[in-house]
């Protein structure tokens, strides 16, 4: 287990380093090191490299880190809550709700600094609607949660498309389209800080709520019999999931499948303790988005592939594999 964590940390570390060094303008590791360890406020005079690293690459790779871990934790919580390994922020409507809010906010001309807040509110609203519809006398009903989430996602997606068609401002629609396809370039340090703060709170909440999470894993009935306030615990966990997902969507748009893949790998490779799952899923998600973004920036010279599209290319087959694998287990 220690060895696995060591390897995971090494992977994340190298992904971070590669993201600093590689790109249209390659930077040698030594130069990158001296720039990153130098004072951030005063880059060496006349150094374009320092500006590029401090203003473009560092915020970008940190956004990748934060978004990856946020989506992974959100996915882990949603999978555990719904007791369904196929659940992720998309299936439960959270991401699409956040996406719709961002589309509406952008088209309404809302100042960009406020867009992340709108995304969070949208994710919260969508999840609240879904959770309220999925409520049953004995807590949240799993199948209803997923079914209502899928339906709400579909509604949000078509509303986003209508909004884009109808905006009458091609430039703005184009920007929005890129953002929705999943894009973490060009984020500022303040946007990064805001989403990182939300995600840190969600991550901490997930760790604190790991015992209730285990109790829920033996079933709602048994959890209640063991003294857990089931409805309260489910809402608290759902809120943590929305917080991490909403903050991720706000800063990165719709980046799919991280919330599906990372928790799955964590569950299979990092023991059975919920806390270990949460921490390792966060790191795996970070590594996944860092490597995917590296590929998005470097695979096609002079051109950047949309991150979300690239991840869907990996995630789609993974999802299908999961479904087939489950069928083999008799589901």
């Amino acid at each position, binding site marked *: 287990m220690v060895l696995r964590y060591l390897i995971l940390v090494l992977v994340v570390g190298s992904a971070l380093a590669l993201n600093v060094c590689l790109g249209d303008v390659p930077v040698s590791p030594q130069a990158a090191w001296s720039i990153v360890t130098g004072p951030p406020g005063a880059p060496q005079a006349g150094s374009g490299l320092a500006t590029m690293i401090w203003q473009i690459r560092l915020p970008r790779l940190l956004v990748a880190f934060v978004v990856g871990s946020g989506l992974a934790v959100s996915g882990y919580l949603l999978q*555990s809550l719904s007791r369904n390994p196929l659940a992720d922020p998309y299936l439960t409507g959270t991401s699409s709700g956040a996406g719709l809010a961002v589309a509406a906010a952008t088209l309404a001309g809302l100042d960009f600094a406020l867009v992340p807040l709108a995304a969070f509110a949208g994710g919260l609203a969508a999840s609240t609607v879904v959770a309220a519809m999925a409520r049953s006398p004995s807590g949240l009903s799993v199948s209803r949660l997923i079914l209502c989430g899928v339906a709400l996602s579909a509604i949000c997606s078509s509303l986003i498309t209508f909004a884009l068609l109808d905006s009458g401002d091609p430039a703005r629609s184009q920007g929005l389209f890129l953002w929705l396809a999943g894009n973490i370039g060009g984020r500022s340090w303040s946007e990064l800080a805001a989403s990182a703060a939300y995600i840190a709170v969600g991550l901490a909440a997930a760790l604190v709520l790991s*015992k209730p999470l285990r109790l829920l*894993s033996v*079933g709602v*009935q048994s959890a209640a*019999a*063991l003294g*857990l306030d089931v409805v309260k615990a489910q809402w608290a966990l759902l809120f943590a999931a929305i917080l991490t997902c909403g903050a991720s969507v706000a800063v990165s748009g719709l980046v799919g499948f991280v919330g599906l893949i990372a928790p799955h790998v964590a569950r299979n490779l990092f023991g*059975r303790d919920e806390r270990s799952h949460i921490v390792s899923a966060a790191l795996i998600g970070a590594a996944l988005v860092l490597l995917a973004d590296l590929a998005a920036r470097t695979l096609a010279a002079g051109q950047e592939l949309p991150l979300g599209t690239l991840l869907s290319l990996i995630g789609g087959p993974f999802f299908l594999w999961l479904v087939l694998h489950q069928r083999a287990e008799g589901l």
Partner: protein
Amino acid sequence: MSETALPALLEASGLTVGWGGKAVAEQVSLQLSAGQILVIAGPNGAGKSTLVKALARQLKPAKGTIKLAGSDIWSLPPRDFARKVSYVPQSLEPGQDLTVRELVALGRNPHQPWWSWGASADDRQAVTEAMEKTATWQLRDKYLSSLSGGERQRAVIAVALAQKPRCMLLDEPTAHLDFRHQLELVDILRDLRGHGLGIVLVVHDLNLMARLADLILLLAKPDDRPSRPACLGRPEQALSQANLRRVYGVEVSIVTDAAGQPVYLPTSSSQ
């Protein structure tokens, strides 16, 4: 036995229980004292499990009240209730595979801070004792998914024992147990009764309940109507031929075994 001299541990009065506005059982009243075993019996669909769920605070009754040592069970915080009452459902639905020891350790949850994974010496001792009593200690590192139905049932009973409750509610705890483990469970329950626990359980086997119960609540299910208590009394009184004919529609001959215990032999369906 002086049932009335002891304070009522669990007391239900005028209960109507059911699902989604549809009553399954009505007009149920019962009193359980410390050191008593109450068996709920009746035909399929009579609402035995639903009634136990209501007593276990899993389901709000449509009518009536349930009191634990004098206070309404719905006025108690869930953890306080779980420290005093444990509930063994008919089946367990684990989403994540746990070992037997991990599962039984969850029984200590109501005694620990809600966020804490730490176990005190008391916790560890209660978990070990519960596993030894239910013969699951040798299964402690096995995964639940690898257990037989009976082993799993014993593990779930161990969880309820680890809670160290004053009152235990068990829904068909003998369903998956073979002959020997049924008898062992009877011994465990008798031992717990000797230690002053109040126990409510649903059982189908007439002979098992006759041997175990201090009181039997017999539910009768008329066609298309919610069931009602047909009798609440001592075994020999509740399990009379007339009652069994009325409730189950079955003729039963009652003989006496060498130890002077009544033995119930269902002979024919009376319809």
